[in-house]
């Protein structure tokens, strides 16, 4: 295994090496932060779990945009359909009055997303790219408005709560998080530095199991998508994205293929929604707000559109940007006296209204990353080369 890893590293592009290096450094810092007691373990696990959700969403969007060139702005709607699909069947206060297993919820969420994806695709897939964007955004809003107002089915704004953990009913694992003891790791003082001093309680165990679920889901989805990418189907999709007329001239049924990509991507997004529902244990119609779609797009573009590794990286990035800017507020001093009145008062306003400044920071970061690295941080390079061609080159 390490031989393959070494080979992969040797053939990695500069972009990949840089990203791996950065990830390595960040990972190291996080571990140090954990050990030093600077980062709460449950919080870190929660953030990783959220990243996992974004990664799934980004992979799904990548199938639609990166592979098939479909500009889809209904991500939040499919995410919501997955979340509500499972929540309506498993929540404690569901108006449907049933209490089924999250696995059933997963299946229902997927089916719901597939059906709605077909319904949306039929009128919109023949449209030009930019029309598809806004049409899909509009239809996503229709879905959100329906979910919000059909209180007999969804409880409307009050939301569905009391969702069980995904593995809550599974044999052995199910009750494990409650039965595991709270582990205290005592503090260790090395000279001036105090390390550890951690308490690993139920929230940490839950976080770990959720993370395992996320990793499993991501692994399965990633492998399936990669397989498809290398199959004739994937090749055809790439041709359609590059030049649809050519593909049609070659006699390929482009509309069918695009439909398949759209449905597949939407199903992956619904899986992310199901995962989220059993992570957050609560769903509300606000989970379907368009801003969530925009965040997933930012993740895909900043990560490197068209590449799955980019999608994974983008998922981490968007969480880093959104949650990392929370901490900026703690780092900035409350006042700064430079002597120039305008600068001082501006700084005071910025520091005092930190939440608005955070919005500013997020906006500037997006612009900056696009400006400095327009193709995203991990654009598809090796992925664009047909694997067979690569083997021929090595031989």
């Amino acid at each position, binding site marked *: *295994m*390490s*031989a393959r890893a*070494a*080979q992969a590293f*040797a053939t990695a592009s500069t972009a990949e090496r840089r990203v791996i290096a950065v990830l390595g450094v960040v990972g190291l810092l996080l571990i140090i932060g954990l050990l030093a*007691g600077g*980062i*709460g*373990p*449950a*919080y870190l696990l*929660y*953030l990783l779990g*959220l990243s996992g959700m974004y990664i799934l969403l980004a992979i799904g969007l990548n199938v639609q945009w990166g592979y098939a060139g479909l500009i889809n702005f209904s991500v939040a709607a499919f995410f919501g359909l997955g979340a509500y699909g499972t929540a309506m069947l498993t929540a404690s206060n569901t108006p449907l009055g049933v209490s089924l297993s999250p696995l059933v919820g997963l299946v229902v969420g997927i089916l719901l997303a597939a059906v709605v994806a077909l319904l949306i695709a039929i009128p919109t897939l023949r449209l030009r790219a930019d029309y598809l964007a806004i049409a899909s955004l509009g239809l996503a809003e229709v879905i959100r408005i329906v979910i*919000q*107002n059909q*209180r007999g089915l969804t409880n*409307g*704004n*009050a*939301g569905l*709560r*009391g*969702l069980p953990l995904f593995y809550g009913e599974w044999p052995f694992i199910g009750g494990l998080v*409650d039965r595991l*003891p*709270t*582990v*205290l*790791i*005592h*503090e*260790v003082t090395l000279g001036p530095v105090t390390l*550890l*001093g*951690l*308490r690993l*309680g*139920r*929230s940490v165990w839950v976080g770990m199991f959720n993370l395992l679920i996320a990793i499993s889901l991501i692994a399965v989805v990633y492998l399936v998508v990669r397989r498809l990418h290398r199959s004739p189907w994937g090749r055809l999709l790439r041709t359609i994205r590059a030049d649809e007329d050519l593909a049609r001239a070659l006699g390929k049924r482009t509309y069918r293929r695009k439909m398949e990509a759209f449905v597949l991507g939407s199903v992956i997004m619904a899986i992310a929604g199901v995962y989220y529902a059993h992570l*957050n*244990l*609560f769903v*509300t119609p*606000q*989970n379907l*707000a368009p801003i*969530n779609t925009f965040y997933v797009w930012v993740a895909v573009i900043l990560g490197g559109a068209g590449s799955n590794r980019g999608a994974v990286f983008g998922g981490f990035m968007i969480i880093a940007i*959104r*949650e990392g800017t*929370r901490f900026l507020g703690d780092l900035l001093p409350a006042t700064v006296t430079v002597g120039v009145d305008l600068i001082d008062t501006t700084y005071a306003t910025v520091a005092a*209204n*930190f*939440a*608005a400044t*955070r*919005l500013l920071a997020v906006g500037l970061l997006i612009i900056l990353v696009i400006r400095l690295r327009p193709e995203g941080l991990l654009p598809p390079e090796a992925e664009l080369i047909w694997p067979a061609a690569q083997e021929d080159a090595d031989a």
Partner: protein
Amino acid sequence: MTHAGPSRYDRRTVLQYAGLAGVVGLAGCTTEQSGGEDADAGDAGAEEPAPDVYRIGMVNSLTGSLADFGTYNERGVALALEDVNASGIGGVPLEIIVEDSESLPDAGVSAAQKLVNQDQVPLIIGAVGSGVSTSIYESVIRGTDVVQLSQNSTSASLTEYPGLLRMSPPGGPQVQVLADLIADDGVGSVAVAWVNNDFGQSQRDGFVDAWGGEVAYDSPHDQEQSSYASVVAEMANSGADAWVFLTYQEQTAAMLDDAYSNGYEAAFYGSDSAKGPSVLEGTPAGALEGMKTVEPSAAIDQANYQDFASRFESAYGEAPTSWSSFAYDCVITAALSIATADGFTGAALGGTVRDVTRSPGETVTTFSAAMDVISDGGDADAIDYDGVSGPIDFDANGDPVGSFQVFEVVDDAYVSRGTRTV
């Protein structure tokens, strides 16, 4: 296949190191016998030295659709911190770490995650939106010992969570009083405009249940609509005698403004969220004349409220809203809970936070008076804090007791018309 040289990371070595780390790690671990989860980061000892600062958390709507409430809360909190830190809690200052919920459940949950799992606070004041508060409870607080005290959420759903305390009385009794008031005024049919979120939905459900007459119009509107003209047109065309506003000030002002410029007349009523300076300022003179609103009775006759109100006016140039008084009382209640608890942990605070607000105990109305009573060695039962927002007195569901006050707009100012109970 070629190697780049003998790899240092072959499987055996990795396993060796992992094993070593595991043994070292286990050596430094102990397990706790108790099953409960505590957000404390250190050893749980019987006697702890008091920390040099008490940190609690707050999830507030600093941005997003409920940002106005964020501002009201900030002001109430600022005044409360002045009072608490004038003497400290047993000399120890109180600090509040504030995170933004962006008025959305997702961001609110993130904020609470950071406060509970990263900053390790034992108590959080949060949140404004009812949907946000319940999300935080379900996702972060449930199953832990952390105390959650919502400053502004009024939806009925919070009553279903005994562990989720709130400072603002639930909307249910309030709309009941409102319905009674409207019936007493001889109105036969109403048009109900409610904001399409958890808060509005809950108020609407309570009102429609309590209302005995005809409901000619009953429709939600979004909080962020670009135009309320169709809402107003429908209300006017429904033929109702009275219009009931179960929505926020901004929306109420926009709709009443539109009603004025369309020349519509009706009797106007509203819940407390529809009352405030923004409504008066946002509507033309005389447009609201006669509008009646029901609001949880702030303790307006009490010296502590009058004191609070005048301090608020001199600091911010306008009268406080009830939301600011709720936020103020949240901080004072938290401080008193800390003062009477036998440890700065969620479990200890959970044991005192209700009792400091209800009987038995000597009735106190300010933080300093309460501290005087406790300093003689009192515990939570020794005091009964009646805040600037009312007597509080948390019940078994974590809801405060509310009595309600009716206000009427006379010459573009709110005039009290006395109190009512359910």
